[in-house]
């Protein structure tokens, strides 16, 4: 729980503490298992973009959108024209399960293609589509103790390997 709080505060500081400037983007993305809010900025004459995100997931055993996700993504453009941009990107992050059955923090690694479709003439708004692969797996242990028995077992939490999200980005 302390780790969750630490990362939440840290990401929030980053998201709100940086001065607004061009080449920044805030976004909201929705996938089958995740809802994310992200902050992105570009570096090195827009050749590299970095993004932090926080969000909710529903991949643990209770299937409720009450798990916490956070992470960092870095990408580079492979195509760009007036209305479209395509990046390849890699990500690292954490998935914090939240249920009554087990507790596990799972590191998640991802690689994906990100497509931006700029809307309107000002390039302030864009449609975001990400498609890729992610890997996250971690073991956990469960125990039960009573006057009659002690029992224990292990399980494994796995993040869905397919990552597909659709979202909206605001550039400033």
């Amino acid at each position, binding site marked *: 729980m302390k780790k969750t709080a630490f990362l939440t505060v*840290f990401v929030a500081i980053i998201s709100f503490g940086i001065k607004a400037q061009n080449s920044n983007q805030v976004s909201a993305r929705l996938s089958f298992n995740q809802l994310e809010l992200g902050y992105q*900025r570009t570096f090195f004459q827009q050749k590299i973009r970095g993004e932090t995100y926080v969000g909710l997931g529903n991949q643990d055993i209770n299937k409720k959108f009450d798990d916490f996700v956070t992470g960092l993504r870095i990408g580079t453009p492979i195509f760009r024209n007036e209305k479209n941009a395509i990046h390849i990107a890699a990500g*690292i992050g*954490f998935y914090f399960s939240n249920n009554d059955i087990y507790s596990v923090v799972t590191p998640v690694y991802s690689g994906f293609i990100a497509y931006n479709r700029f809307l309107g003439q000002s390039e302030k708004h864009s449609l975001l589509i990400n498609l890729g692969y992610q890997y996250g797996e971690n073991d*956990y242990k*469960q125990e*039960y103790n009573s006057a*009659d028995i002690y029992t224990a*077992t292990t399980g494994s939490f796995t993040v869905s390997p397919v990552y597909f999200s659709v979202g909206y980005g605001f550039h400033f």
Partner: protein
Amino acid sequence: MKIFNQYLITMLAGLVGFSSCSKEELAFTNGDVKIEIETGEHWLHDFPLFLGISKKNPPQFAIWLEDTAGNYISTVFATYKIATEGWQANNGNRRKEALPYWCHQRGVVYEDGLMLPTKANPLTDGISGATPKENKTLQLSIRNFTEPVVIKAEFNHSIDFNEFYPEDAKEGDANYSGGDMGSGQPAVIYAGTLNPGAKELELQMIGYSSADGTNGNIYTDMEKLSTAKTIVGKIRVTIE
């Protein structure tokens, strides 16, 4: 920029730390009982989702202890859905036909008159856990293990229909198993008596449960079952 770099370093350091200590293992000590469930050919069963897409579902199951007189002692493990009424989109169907023998042996009647744990009152004894897609190992220590105990297990797939338990059987028919989202083939039951001082034991299939979940009887005319008989490969019990 500086704070962004610090964040990156923090994330990387955290990931390295987590990745290096992610393996959880059971620590058996002298006298502990190891229960190993080996999956069978039909451990995973196609469950339709939509538009012809299906997913491979593992079975619901429970493992529990009784004394040799048939008195329930404790659940060791029960799958999450049956233990917490954790079904997705079940439209109120409590699936009483899922593991009726275990339910009746426990003998706990809930507010709706059924013997299944509810969302409000989930199972409180034993471990409730995710249904494994592969072999499962449990560590068990029995307090005051001076008398023989009976280890029992019950396994069930939903919509596992066959010619004896068809989808179109009507409520009241002998082969009715809960309708189109019911069990199909009823739950299969395994049991074995573990004596103090024994070294190993393999649970044997002793029958199957009530198809519609209305009683806690064991039925032994196994020829009515087909794929249900190979949900489980083997259940091996060893004393460390």
